[in-house]
């Protein structure tokens, strides 16, 4: 197990870059969330593929990704089913492949929530800080690992 000293300390908000589209998003670092989630607008599901848009504020990019699972979420309105997709993000100097729930987060401030599933192995959170690491990952897109990530033109 990695000791806290070896982990990277990050703050409550960090900028990340979503690959391969190189969209920069501010992410809320949230130890209260079991899983990460992404603000997905105009979400449509066609069998095992999900289509959605990022918020206009972050370019409104239209994405089409394979659904790798479903998550049942308890909300005040009842049980909700949310698609889970895999994303490749750059935080600090490292690229991570991680899973995120898709949900309309227009009511909240940050388009991406990074939850415990993401933070666990790699990061320690110091809420006194914010934007402690600049996303700075290499440009080379790993085709082999990421061929199932595609955008719609």
């Amino acid at each position, binding site marked *: *197990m*990695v000791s*806290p*000293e070896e*982990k990277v*300390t990050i703050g*409550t908000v960090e900028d990340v870059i979503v690959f391969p589209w190189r969209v920069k998003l501010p992410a*809320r*670092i*949230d*130890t*209260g*969330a079991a899983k990460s989630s992404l603000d997905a607008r105009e979400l449509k599901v066609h069998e095992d593929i999900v289509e959605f848009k990022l918020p206009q504020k972050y370019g409104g990019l239209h994405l089409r990704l394979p659904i790798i699972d479903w998550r049942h979420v*308890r909300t*005040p*309105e009842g049980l909700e089913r949310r698609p889970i997709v895999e994303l490749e993000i750059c935080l600090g100097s490292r690229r991570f492949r991680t899973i995120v729930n898709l949900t309309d987060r227009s*009511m909240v401030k940050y388009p991406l*929530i990074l939850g*415990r599933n993401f*933070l*666990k*192995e790699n*990061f*320690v*959170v*110091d*809420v*006194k800080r914010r934007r402690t690491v600049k996303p700075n990952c290499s440009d080379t897109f790993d085709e082999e690992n990421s061929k199932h990530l595609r955008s719609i033109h």
Partner: protein
Amino acid sequence: MKMVSIQNSFQKRPIGLSQGLRFLLLLTILLLPLGKASAEEKMVIGEVEEVVLRPWGVRLPARIDTGAATSSLDARNLTVKNNMAEFRLSKKYGSLQLRLPVIGWQKIRSADFRERRPVVEITFCMGPKLIHTQVTLNDRSTVSYPLIIGRNVLKDNFVVDCVHSNCLPPSCSEVPSQ
């Protein structure tokens, strides 16, 4: 010739050392204020920690939530009269009946409703620290933890490592050291 060169190097070394020391000293003085709030000096806690509510001595598991700006407590049968909040803790934690002054209200935005929640002050022991803080009161019966510890508490004292839980058991001295 060999002897001379050795002597020379001996003479030079003390000077080089003291310069090095002076530089190191200067460096420490310069870096000292930077290191003050570093994560290394803060206590590392996990995603869930136990705390003890003072003065009642009730032990509660708390979700450590960097996504929450403020902390909140599960309050059942909540009523507010004349600026006093009356409520009880959930059965699981002894149903303790509490009556505390309301010091403010927090507005909650949500897709379908607007809500105002009373804010009270509580004291609890977390690790070796006695923490006096504000919490919002609401019925949290749908969630797993009776206490959410948000950024208002975490800020000055702790860093969060999600691989762990219960890594800092309450260890405050019996007499509250306010």
